[in-house]
């Protein structure tokens, strides 16, 4: 993941045109390297991607389209959109807050905080789901208090509520928030650190209030990095499988997201439908890659313009 983070801030398009002859590899080495790279990319990237669409359209377009005419598939799509709609904005607000205090201020424990933000990337998806079961599950810390019942210390109204978090939508949203937690923050922190605070100081000196400065100066400056983080966060939020699998309970039509629905269809040997739903997520992945590359090229161009000006 470090690569994605650094590519926005560090990458510069550099296809070297006129390489001096002395530092060029012999022709056979170049041909060999290109061949190995192409075969590797073809086998591990192009083939899986083509297989998704190939298998989805194996029995023709009509069967493909009919796969979406299924209430369970539609409810899975709706739940996936809802989950992303909750998790992405939450992590967006967090990302802005975290990068603001880390990039613009100097305080004790800053390095520790930065490391802790990256922590979810080091945790296996399955464990990301498990830890919420430990907190909200029936045998968990808060689980026993969530169901309807006579709990001391809580009010009448609370005791009547039957709150479900695990094996329900809130658990799915929480697990998704956990696995997509660092995406926006880790794009914004290096970006805001590189930009410094001069423009904010200028705005304040000219009499802007704190929020005016934020909306008119800071936000326009970080908008591309923000967008970059959001699309990556969204792709992961919609595609998360392991963590969601642990907390969902797999109730058809209720707690199945698209990846979970794919698993069910696949295990029922309904391959065309499984790959049809997969093709939507593969399209999302392709759109994500295209947007990401566009932002990177845009960024490289503005950098080059700034350097030549």
């Amino acid at each position, binding site marked *: *993941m470090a690569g*994605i983070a650094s590519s926005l801030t560090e990458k510069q398009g550099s296809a070297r045109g006129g390489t001096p002859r002395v530092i060029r590899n012999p022709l056979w080495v170049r041909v060999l*390297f290109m061949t190995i790279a192409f075969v590797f990319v073809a086998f591990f990237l192009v083939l899986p991607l083509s297989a998704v669409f190939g298998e989805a359209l194996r029995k023709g377009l009509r069967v493909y389209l009919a796969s979406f005419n299924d209430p369970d598939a539609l409810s899975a799509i709706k739940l996936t959109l809802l989950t992303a709609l909750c998790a992405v904005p939450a992590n967006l607000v967090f990302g802005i807050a*975290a990068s603001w205090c880390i990039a613009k201020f100097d305080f004790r424990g800053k390095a520790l905080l930065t490391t802790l933000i990256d922590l979810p990337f080091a945790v296996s998806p399955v*464990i990301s789901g498990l830890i919420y079961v430990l907190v909200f599950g029936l045998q968990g810390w808060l689980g026993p208090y969530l169901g309807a019942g006579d709990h001391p210390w809580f009010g009448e109204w609370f005791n009547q509520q039957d709150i479900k978090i695990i094996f329900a939508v809130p658990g799915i949203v929480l697990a998704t928030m956990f696995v997509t937690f660092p995406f926006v923050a880790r794009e914004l922190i290096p970006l805001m650190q590189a930009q410094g605070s001069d423009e904010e100081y200028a705005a304040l000196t000219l009499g802007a209030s704190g929020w005016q400065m934020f909306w008119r100066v800071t936000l326009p400056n970080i908008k591309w990095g923000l967008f970059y983080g959001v699309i990556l966060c969204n792709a992961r939020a919609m595609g998360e*499988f392991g963590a969601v699998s642990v907390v969902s309970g797999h109730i058809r039509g209720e707690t199945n997201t698209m990846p979970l629905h794919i698993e069910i269809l*696949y295990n029922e040997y309904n391959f065309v439908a499984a790959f049809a739903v997969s093709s939507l997520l593969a399209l999302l992945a*392709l759109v994500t*890659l295209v947007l990401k590359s566009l932002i990177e090229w845009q960024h490289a161009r503005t950098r080059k313009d700034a350097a030549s000006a």
Partner: protein
Amino acid sequence: MSVVRQRSVLPGFGLSLGFTVTYLSLIVLIPLAAAFIRTAEMSWGDFVQAVASPRVLASYRLSFGVSLLAALVNAFFGFIVAWVLVRYSFPGRKIVDALVDLPFALPTAVAGIALTAIYAKNGWVGQWAEPMWSGFLAWLTGVMPSVDWKKLLGAQIAFDRPGVFIALTFIGLPFVVRTLQPVLEELEPELEEAAASLGANRWQTMTRVIFPELLPPLITGFALAFARAVGEYGSVVFIAGNRPMHSEITPLLIITKLEQYDVRGATAIAVVMLVTSFILLFLINLLQKWSRRHHRI
């Protein structure tokens, strides 16, 4: 006593730090702490039984062994892909460059069923790779009959150990390329020209000048790919066959225990994996610091 080292005129420090720490604690720290606290409640004997039973040990061997192998393969091919992307210009370079991130963007479940479809016996690749694999195993048995190669490497590609390897190679692919690329781009051609003008041939320049520069990011990328592979679940379960004691990865074992309502057993294994990945994360951070210092000089 203030937390801020320097007074700043910028507003919003208290609000943003307060929100950051609260949100971090609620979403990440407290749930993660739950795993450690629940495990600490177990007796030592129960803990050892949960994390060191033969089936769990077999899953560690598979998960760590195959992840190591996949990360090594990614280090080799990732180096070549990064080299080709930075040094050579060819039509479609930008498309290949963008495609490298596919394993990050493609949901793991989709990758899992796609890889299974390709490498199954009647799949695009499987239909000719499967006989080759059998032939390879027969040849190995001929050379070294003392080892049960079918058991060690897996008798077939999909639904066996090679499937695990393929899935873990796929998801680890971007890490090495993306950590090497920026370093390769900043490598000054003057360095190589100097080596050449001092009489080094191309092979000497590659091995003695370029490779030492690229070693820190290469190891970092390798470690990142390895760490990701150890915890991977979605892309593996479809293609692995999931036979206990043979092709069952550790994350799957956690899910199996949960489905048997053995929450404590699942949590104990999770804690072992968490500690391992935190140690890995720590080592990766050290490596990156070392490599940054290395580059400043």
